[in-house]
């Protein structure tokens, strides 16, 4: 198996030379061994690849993407365990000189790989692989993950959580080769590589390239509904892209930073849910007017330490509130809080037009009409009290958030 990490890797050429390729994008449990060989503040993706490569010394084709990748190559080269390890020099643009340089790199890789494996270039395989990497059209609403590469685990996790189709347009995801040129069948190897070097350099530029204006196509798309912007811990490239993106688009953006370990994922769940709520505000299914006698509205915040309830009347005035300790049973605590306000107001469950639950136990309260994340509730609550508020600090029992 030949592992690679970068979208500019000539995957189709490797396939044509008989390689079985695989993108290395997996999380690891810790970075202990990788950090012993490098440093704690090296990019987490590079450390994850290093950590894995110490166990599985398959073949590896790297690209001189960034300082972290260059050093990853240096360290692996010094260990000398890989049967095939190669670093390709990637130019910073697609002008003629750069294409020439990159074509030479393709020739060099081809020579090294085929002499190592005694293999020859299979033109039909190459053309078929290029054809497969051509772009599909997107004709329905979608969300995009942009920014630095996401781990395969994180991508799966995101796909599960969002209610739209999700396109991976991160640095390693948006690898779509342009359509094949006319007459490709009759081109000789040099001509093929000339076209291929250009086609690779004409991919949507990542932040490593000098001219990044072309990145706009990633977010200028009528079907795009919102952006999950991902950065990798200790990667510098994409913080800069995010700053630009924020200025250029009005689409809703959720920024997530991960560190290529499974720990990140748990923290994202609530923020993702809140993001989905902001994209398509939940229609709360109120019972029909005639069916309920009361016109009261209650919000229950089921936190890890306490359960709070606040009741508003039709004029949006607070008419009652209560706080009880959250015991082992979330539902029971919520009922206790509800009973407390009911007895204050002299009403029963039927006095309420709607009850909305939030907080970590929000999904375990069966008598609530809807469950909404605390992030959305905080935002709405703060806006209700003072529309000028821009930052909320939530000091909670389980964690503090901003």
């Amino acid at each position, binding site marked *: 198996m030949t592992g690679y990490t970068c979208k500019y890797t000539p995957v189709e050429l490797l396939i044509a030379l008989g390689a079985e390729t695989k993108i290395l994008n997996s999380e690891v449990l810790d970075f202990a061994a990788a950090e012993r060989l490098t440093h704690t503040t*090296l990019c987490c993706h590079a450390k994850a690849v290093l950590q894995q490569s110490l166990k599985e010394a398959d073949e590896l084709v790297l690209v001189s993407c*960034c300082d972290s990748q260059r*050093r990853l190559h*240096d360290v692996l080269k010094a260990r000398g365990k890989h049967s095939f390890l190669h670093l390709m020099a990637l130019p910073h643009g697609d002008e003629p000189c750069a294409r020439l*340089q990159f074509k030479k790199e393709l020739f060099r890789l081809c020579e090294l790989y085929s002499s190592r494996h005694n293999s020859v270039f299979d033109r039909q395989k190459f053309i078929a692989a290029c054809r497969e990497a051509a772009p599909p059209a997107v004709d329905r609403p979608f969300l995009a993950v942009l920014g630095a590469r996401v781990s395969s685990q994180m991508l799966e996790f995101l796909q599960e959580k969002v209610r739209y189709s999700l396109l991976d347009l991160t640095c390693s995801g948006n690898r779509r080769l342009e359509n094949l040129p006319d007459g490709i069948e009759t081109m000789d190897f040099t001509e093929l590589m000339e076209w291929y070097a250009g086609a690779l350099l004409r991919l949507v530029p990542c932040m490593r390239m*000098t001219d990044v204006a072309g990145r706009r196509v990633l977010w200028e798309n009528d079907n795009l509904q919102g952006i999950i912007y991902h*950065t990798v811990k*200790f990667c*510098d490239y994409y913080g800069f892209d995010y700053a*630009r993106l924020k200025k250029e688009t009005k689409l809703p953006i959720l920024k997530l930073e991960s560190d290529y370990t499974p720990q990140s994922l748990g923290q994202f769940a609530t923020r993702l849910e809140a993001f989905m709520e902001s994209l398509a505000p939940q229609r709360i299914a109120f019972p029909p007017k005639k069916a309920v006698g009361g016109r009261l509205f209650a919000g229950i915040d089921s936190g890890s330490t306490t359960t709070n309830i606040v009741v508003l009347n039709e004029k949006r005035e607070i008419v009652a509130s209560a706080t009880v300790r959250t015991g082992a049973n979330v539902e029971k605590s919520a009922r206790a809080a509800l009973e407390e306000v009911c007895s204050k107001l002299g009403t029963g469950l039927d006095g309420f037009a709607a009850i909305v639950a939030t907080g970590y136990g929000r999904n375990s309260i069966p008598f609530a009409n809807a469950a909404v994340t605390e992030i959305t509730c905080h935002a709405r609550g703060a806006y209700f009290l003072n529309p000028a508020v821009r930052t909320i600090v939530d000091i909670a029992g389980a964690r503090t958030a901003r």
Partner: protein
Amino acid sequence: MNNLEKTIVKTFGNIVTRQVYANPGRVRRLLAAAYGLVGWRNALLRRSGVEKAYTRMGAALSRLISKSFLHPENAVMVNIFFPCEILHSLDIIPVFPEALSAYLVNSGCEQVFAEAAENADVPESFCSYHKIMIGFAETGVLPKPLLIANTTLACDANRLSFRRLAEYFRVPHLVVDVPDRIDGEAEHYVAEQLRAVTAFLEESCQRKMDWDRLCETVSIADRSLKSYREYLEIRGRRSLPVTMSGELYSLIATHVLLGTPESENYINTLKQVAQTAPPAAGKKRILWLHILPNWQESMRVIFEQNGRCEILCRDLTYDVLTDMDPRRPYESMARRLLHNINNGGAERRITAAVHYAKKMRADGVLLFCHWGCKQTMGLSQLAKSTLEAEGFPTLVLDGDGCDSRNVPDGQMATRVNAFLEQLEAEK
């Protein structure tokens, strides 16, 4: 620094910090005046030994920064590796992050700029030289330069911050792409790009490049580099009170100011002083890799005042001491970029470290991991194991060359002292 100077710096830093957002123009004038004053004061000081070279270079640098604030329309923002012979020959002032950030931290006002950059989405883990420069520019204190020109050598920070600032200032951005591999084609590729830079500059500042002047500048550069090589040769046998700020001056003399009479004078003075310096004896001789935290009092005490050790030189000054051919200025500058030990794999930098550790008769090596510098951090352990296998004990020290927020001061001092004890116990 004595106590009075410390109080002045602190008060100055506070004034700057308080005014940055309300009145960036005033802060700029204040800094220009202060650096101008320091420049003149240093120029008038009568010093001897290495201090003579340092005060003169300090004066030249302070005046350069001050001038770039007052005449930004004649200043070009560059990175430390950019071949500035082109600028000097056109009488253009170079502005670069290493000097700006080092001056700001020594004026006690870097934090406000680092924070401004972080608030504008510059990653916390980004190289602090560049981070402070971005904050300095985007708060409106650094004036808009004529244009920005940088090389892709030697790190990611170059690619990111200069592009961002060119967009911010809306000025042209010229990038010289330096390939990793060294061959005739690569030399031609880089030389052509440098010619294009000249053409662009001629157009922008409405001045014609005088070919003879460029050749003369490259000739000064060549003499200076030869002289610096000789200095290092002598330094290997002598003991010299080199300071951390002194090494910053040497970096600037062998890079951004290379080709100027100031740089040549500086290097020649250094060489003369070394020739008459006492032979090496007693003190532990440290080869320094990468950045020196010249603002940090505890490190200054250890490396400049305690008499136990001395800094030999830093690897950024010997990164490329090749000959230059004044009749082929562009090819010579291109070669300097390609052969830089920071270009390409870590091997070149580590091999050079071993070479100079031997040549300079080092007792130990200190590799300084400056905050955010991935290229240095990434090779730190590889360098340590290679150098130690060659018999040079190596300390990998984390710190920051220009942002005092990132520094565990006490812990650093303890680690350096323990390292010196280890060296002292060995021989």
